[in-house]
């Protein structure tokens, strides 16, 4: 009885971790995504993501934007603006990972 009580949360935690891992791009892909965002998104949003022709993408500037909104914008673009849809280059998982990292403050290359 006592043993199961300890066990269950452990299993639940493992499940959550397992899910989280399965839902993230592989480390090599993450490195590619960091480069893509810094370099290619950076041609409009700036290498430091402080903005250019496109708006700033630093965490403070995105504070009121839900991750879902960012994910959608990344995949489908914003018609009427120069923001193109990136879904030819990115999976849903990639876009979600980028959106989450942007909200946390995007990692540096390497």
């Amino acid at each position, binding site marked *: 009885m006592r043993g199961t009580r300890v066990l269950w949360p452990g299993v639940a935690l493992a499940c959550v971790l397992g899910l989280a891992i399965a839902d993230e791009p592989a480390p090599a892909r993450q490195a590619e995504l960091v480069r893509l965002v810094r370099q290619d998104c950076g041609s409009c949003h700036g290498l430091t993501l402080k903005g*250019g*022709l496109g708006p700033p993408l630093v965490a403070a500037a995105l504070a009121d934007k839900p991750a879902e909104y960012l994910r959608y914008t990344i995949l489908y673009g914003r018609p009427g603006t*120069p923001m*193109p849809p990136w879904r030819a280059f990115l999976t849903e998982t990639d876009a979600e990972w980028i959106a989450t990292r942007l909200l946390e403050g995007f990692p540096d290359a390497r």
Partner: protein
Amino acid sequence: MRVSAVLIAAALLLSAGCAQHEPRGSGDLGVIVERSAGRLQVVDTTRQKSIGAIAGLGDLSHASVVYSRDGRYAYVFGRDGGLTKVDLLRLRIERRIVQSGNSIGGAISQDGKLVAAANYTPGGVRVFDAETLEMLADIPATYGDGGQRAKVVGLEDAAGSRFAFSLFEAGEIWVADLSVPRAPKIQKFRNIGRQPYDALITLDGRYYLAGLFGEDGVAMLDLWHPERGVKRVLDGYGKGEQPLPVFKMPHLEGWAMAGHLAFLPAVGRHEVLVVDTITWREAGRIAVAGQPVFVMAQPDGRRIWVNFALPHNDTVQVIDTETRNIVHTLKPGRAVLHMEFTARGESVWISARDDNRVTVYDTATFERKAELAAEQPSGIFFTVRALRFGF
């Protein structure tokens, strides 16, 4: 013994000093921007090698460079609003200011005395003394009811201490006359088209052309006759076709002109547009490997070199201007960002950001002549730009 040692040391110092001060011209020099490192490499285009590096230039994503008319000083416009005057001969920073929060590029006046920077934040143009970098004029790009400021793009130098530029959100072209630098006179042209994204000025300094992102077309101003207003050329070149997503904005500076034909990147299409510059009508289109970013003519006008946006950014295509056929396709590396010709065009230097190199090609044979290591190289700018309008 001691005296002779001192003498030898003095002689060595003297000879080292002499070697350091060996006079040389600047006409065959240039710089390569290493965007992430905030550094420039100074290159010798005759020997096809790097002769030194200058660091500490801030955020150089999308950095651009103009030159003093003696080709000695490079003015480097950084994304972070930095404006740095670099001495190519002494390989050092002469002066550096941070003139705005976010800048896209700049220009130098016909007489070489004024340097102007185009800014996104705060939107507008600031003009500086080329010698001291003291600010002489601040031109806010206000529009609408005056409360909003537009991002400034396509800042070009025109004859007579004038600068022409476009306001992205406002859809306006302004011409600022800085004959009296501290009291600029501004002429505004409104409703020129939606979202001008970049501009060029013809080699004779006469026509200012702004590419439009928000619609198919190009806005043209004849600077000999500004009273005639801005005209639309290449109107509706897409003819209702659904444009492709644009993964990198095309650039118009360094555009291609061969005889009376001009070659321009089509926005959202895998095409180069051919324009007759006598009638300013479309004279054809050339299908290419991807969405063109730079469409540049060799100085002799015989061939056009084109690079592309993602996912075709490892490719460069070469078009023969007589037959309009693609005569060669090159793969200079991953993420080709820029191409620069030497003054008379015997070679072209091409940067490949993701392969950390710049490759020098012979333009007649397409042979690789040299390769230079560079950290994430972007723009390449040779001092020959000092002598031209719009470079």
